[in-house]
């Protein structure tokens, strides 16, 4: 939960968004039986439609662009020479081809872990400092990672998701991701598959995507990163996976860990062919 107020320029939109959606959600269980809404009704989808193309994520995109282009850190350099997989300095379309193997690190990297590499190597800002705020919490604790991810993802809007699966390490990451998806553990015996491998299910009123199907996987994956209305924050796939594992009753997923990247690889391949529409707007 947030503990401080959001930055002034986004406060009115964030508040309005949350107020209207809260109203829609809270009204649902309390209405009389005569006017009971269909459980399938999706207040977020309705609200998203009302807002058209407006999304508070734009404030993260703008801050991310500034972080990308402004010389910073001990080396006083911008991130404009960062190679996101399509060559030095190419941002457009790069997110649609991640995760992938990078020869300069010898690892498969997703968007966030690659951004960490670029910030470390180009700007000389150390990982611990950068990741002190992995997940932002209001104006006083903004996450540079979330802003950068929003900016880079937005530069792939409209691009078709096409993730390479040729390097042995890319194949290994996919295989590992698939194992993790079905790996049951913890006091509740949950795996990702417990909630995300069947069609047409809901948890409470929330629709659950079947992430083993292309259509559901595309709709879910291509809209991350996303502005989370309930949190008034922009969140990335690293956050999404961390919070899923929290609810699975497992320990804290390390940011940029092998498991997080492998699972992202598996999900990205399931969503292959989808059109990036990020940052999205989610509950």
């Amino acid at each position, binding site marked *: 939960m947030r503990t401080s107020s959001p930055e002034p320029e986004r406060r009115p939109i964030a508040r309005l968004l949350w107020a209207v959606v809260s109203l829609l959600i809270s009204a649902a269980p309390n209405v009389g039986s005569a006017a009971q809404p269909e459980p399938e009704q999706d207040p977020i989808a309705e609200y998203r439609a009302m807002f058209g193309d407006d999304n508070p994520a734009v404030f993260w995109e703008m801050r991310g662009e500034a972080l990308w282009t402004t010389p910073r850190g001990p080396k006083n350099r911008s991130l404009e020479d960062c190679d996101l997989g399509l060559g030095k300095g190419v941002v457009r379309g790069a997110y649609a081809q991640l995760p992938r193997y990078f020869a300069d690190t010898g690892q498969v990297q997703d968007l966030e872990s690659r951004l960490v590499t670029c910030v470390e190597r180009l700007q000389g800002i150390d990982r611990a400092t950068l990741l002190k705020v992995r997940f932002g919490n209001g104006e006083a604790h903004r996450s540079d990672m979330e802003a950068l991810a929003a900016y880079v993802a937005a530069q792939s809007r409209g691009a078709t998701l096409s993730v390479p699966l040729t390097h042995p390490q890319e194949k290994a990451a996919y295989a590992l991701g698939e194992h993790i998806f079905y790996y049951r*553990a913890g006091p509740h015996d949950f795996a990702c598959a417990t909630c995300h491998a069947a069609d047409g299910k809901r948890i*409470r009123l929330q629709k659950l995507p079947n992430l083993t199907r292309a259509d559901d996987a595309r709709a879910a994956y291509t809209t991350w990163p996303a502005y989370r209305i309930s949190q008034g924050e922009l969140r990335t796939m690293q956050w999404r996976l961390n919070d899923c594992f929290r609810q699975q009753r497992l320990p804290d997923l390390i940011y940029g860990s092998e498991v997080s990247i492998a699972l992202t690889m598996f999900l990205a391949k399931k969503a292959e062919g989808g059109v990036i529409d990020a940052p999205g707007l989610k509950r």
Partner: protein
Amino acid sequence: MNAKTLITALVLFGMAPTQGSASELPEVLKRSFVAKGQAGLDRLEQDPTQKACSQAGAVTGAAAAEIIAANQASIRYPSDGQWLGDWRAGEAIAQRGTGKQFSDDPTEPSGGNCYACHQLAPDEIAYGTIGPSLKAYGKLRGRGEAVLRYTWGKIYNPQAYFPCSGMPRFGHQQILTEQQIRDVMALLFDPESPVNRDSSP
């Protein structure tokens, strides 16, 4: 790695060892998580049932029979012979979704979060559909010893009836206490419970 371990890994993960990832999985998991709150790294380790159920397809035949037998043996029936507690307490348990997460206070009792997956009281429309509807559960089934015993066992350890069920083993994994299970039982069986009554006018 010896041959037996390798074969076990192959069977469990159903893949060729060329990626090397199957046998490395426990180490990869330990490197990828840190202990937080009440969730230690030990939670990444699997018991035999979790291992057998970590695959895409259904588990059948001897493997399924083995899961049923092992989990049947784990069920502890109420020590005082009392099956039913307080349905109001049961409803609160069914509504509560917290417990055992690293973000939860371990001194607070866990919820059962039944509504996440099941329809129960007809007035609660915010129910999930991962599990079957339990509306009118007791009204439809009566309160005979056999159905009470089966339902207790199903809450305590669903793997004893449906191998690789997605439902948590609430008793076996000590998510709910014996008294909490009694209360959830009352929610299902008590004639006064909203589960067994029509929707309010």
